[in-house]
């Protein structure tokens, strides 16, 4: 079977700055594929080229057999785009927005009305559809932003960080709808900088950093890159300066990597069980309290750490 999307050596330069650097990947029909990368990695720029909004500096992409550079109109018909920045008319109601965007997709009449009712149901906002978008919460706006991208039943849906900056409940709702859409057969290209989302949603993940696709594969394949390592997550009480402890932990034998973020320290070690006693001993010696410890299987966070030496979220 032919992939529904193929990106071949995509490059995008902005005045000499390379935002996307030789990115190649393919997505099979029906697949849910995540592009995982930190801020500024080049996710949005990649999506913009794939949705024919930005001409690649070099390289090519083919969507449903249509080149994005030579036959963009045919390629666009296949895709639905959910942009990272909410693109709606705030002064119009959700219903009016959907109606307008439906007409832009060439729909109309009773078919459009029915479809609007369906997508509103899918994103769970049917009861609030008559309100102006500007009265919505951030999460509701994001859900309407998604609904617009679904109107014309695209075979391939691009979702660019659709959960950024919203409450956990809306986020849950969005992740569940994405999974439901995929189950119904829609192919999804999902970008995120949340490791958990990529982990929950997709079989295959591409990791992008500084414009380069640094890893690509199933989650299993990716975590195997880290080797048989465990991750040990220490939760510290708030307001403690952990620098001293980190230095001490780094000095322990068998310690592969130590990173820290939000009162947490993540240790990569060959065997978590063995590492715990000396870690606690060091904390005790330096007078640090450890609130709790989690042992984690190697995850995408660890993969990113392994490949770049940096945490995904800084």
């Amino acid at each position, binding site marked *: 079977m032919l992939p529904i999307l193929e990106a071949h050596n995509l490059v995008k330069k902005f005045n000499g700055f390379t935002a996307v650097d030789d990115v190649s990947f393919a997505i099979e029909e029906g697949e849910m594929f995540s592009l995982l990368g930190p801020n500024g990695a080049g996710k949005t720029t990649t999506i*913009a080229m794939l*949705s*024919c*909004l930005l*001409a690649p500096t070099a390289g090519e992409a083919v969507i449903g057999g249509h080149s994005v550079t030579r036959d*963009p*109109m045919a390629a*666009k*018909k296949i*895709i639905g*785009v959910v*942009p990272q*920045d*909410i*693109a*709606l*008319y705030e*002064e*119009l109601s959700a219903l*009016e927005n959907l109606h*307008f*965007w439906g*007409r*832009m*997709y*060439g729909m*109309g009449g009773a078919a459009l009305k029915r479809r609007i009712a369906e997508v509103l149901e899918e994103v769970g906002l049917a009861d609030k559809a008559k309100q102006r978008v500007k009265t919505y919460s951030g999460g509701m706006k994001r859900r309407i932003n998604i609904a*617009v991208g679904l109107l*014309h039943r695209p075979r391939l849906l691009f979702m660019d960080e659709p959960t950024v900056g919203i409450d956990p409940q809306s986020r849950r709702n969005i992740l569940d709808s994405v999974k439901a859409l995929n189950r119904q057969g829609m192919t999804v290209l999902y970008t995120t900088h949340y490791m958990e989302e990529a982990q929950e949603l997709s079989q295959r993940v591409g990791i992008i950093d500084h414009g380069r696709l640094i890893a690509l594969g199933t989650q299993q394949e990716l975590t195997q890159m880290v080797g048989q390592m465990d991750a040990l997550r220490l939760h510290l009480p708030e307001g403690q300066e952990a620098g001293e402890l980190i230095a001490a932990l780094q000095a322990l034998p068998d310690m592969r990597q130590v990173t820290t973020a939000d009162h947490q320290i993540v240790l990569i070690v060959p065997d978590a069980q063995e590492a715990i006693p000396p870690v606690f001993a060091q904390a005790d010696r330096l007078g640090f309290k450890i609130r709790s410890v989690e042992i984690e299987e190697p995850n995408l966070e660890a993969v990113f750490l392994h490949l770049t030496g940096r945490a995904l979220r800084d």
Partner: protein
Amino acid sequence: MTKLIAIAWKDLRLIFRDRAALILMLATPFALTLGMGLITGAFSGGGSSIPQLPVVVVNQDGGQLGDALTQLLTSADLDDLLAARVETDETAARSAVESDQVAAAVIVPAGFTDSIIPKDADALSAPAVAIEVVMNPGRPISAGVVRSIVEGFIDQVEAGRVGGQVAIGQLLGSGLIASQEIAQMAQQFGQEQASLAGEPLIRVRRSDVAPEETNDFNPLLLLAPGMALAFLMFTVSLGSRSILVERRDGTLARMLSTATPAGPILVGKIAGVYLVGVAQMFILILASTLLFRLDWGDPLGVIALVLAAVVGAAGWGLLLAAVAKTPNQVANLGMTMMLLFGILGGSFFGGALPEGALGRLAKITPNAWAMAGFTALARGGDLTDIAPDIAALLAMGAALLAISVALFSRKGFLQR
């Protein structure tokens, strides 16, 4: 084609939901026409000054704005228009209206200032408290005058609040002058008009106008189209500005992602600008016809002239959007254009063009051509009389449109 209509229709809808825009598009030109008309004596028939209108003011506000409005109504500026007295008792004021002692009562409720200028962030969402104008049904015109003055005041407050161009604080900090400016400006224009009263207000190009007609020519027939045209220039810049707003907000990119080529999108946006301008003109014309009983002249001529005038005006609006980099720049350029063209094209002076070179320069404004057309129609001309004006407006619009589209495509708007 349906996409094009969808875009234009959506733009029309968006503008009519924008309160600040509506105030400038519709309320302000209407209020200025009314205010200037009053002072020029357009309503009193013979051109003599109208007697003072009795009005009573009840200020329960206790804030800056309530005081400012009371001051305005009782000020020396409005002395020969209004005989205002200040009351503390609301019921007494209402019964004064009922017993026909006064033409209207203006009641500023408690908390008016606070609802406009919130003391703290929590109060921001508090509903606005409205000023009440109790109108004497027996004296509709006099009461209408009072109401229009209050509306003018509120427009100023709104413009400061919504437009964000003049912070309310500044407005008030400058000694509450701003609220009086409307009246002063109107008076000034009125005096200018009055001093011209001996000679014709405008040189008329048509020779077939009977002299008697010129004599009792209603000055509103010069003021109303002038104001409408001046503010039309604002409207077209606002409409064109939305092209840059859509680019900034990502809705343009989203339209492009729907397999709609850039060409039709741009045409849809241009159609939106045009539609909004036409709607504004017809609303203003209709309102003045109904409320002031103005006779604009041959309906066919008026319709054709409006359609042509908006073509010329839209051309200028699009040009601004095509040269500007940000929506803000378009807004500023649009305001400047409105004032400049309004003055140059005689819109604020009943169509009188400047002398000499400036007068020739005025021919680049849609205002001058359209004003000449409206004047001719009001004096009994028909479609053939205004054909040259219509032709000039259409040619102007076509040329500006071509330049604007070329500029847009050079900026990459028409790529894919």
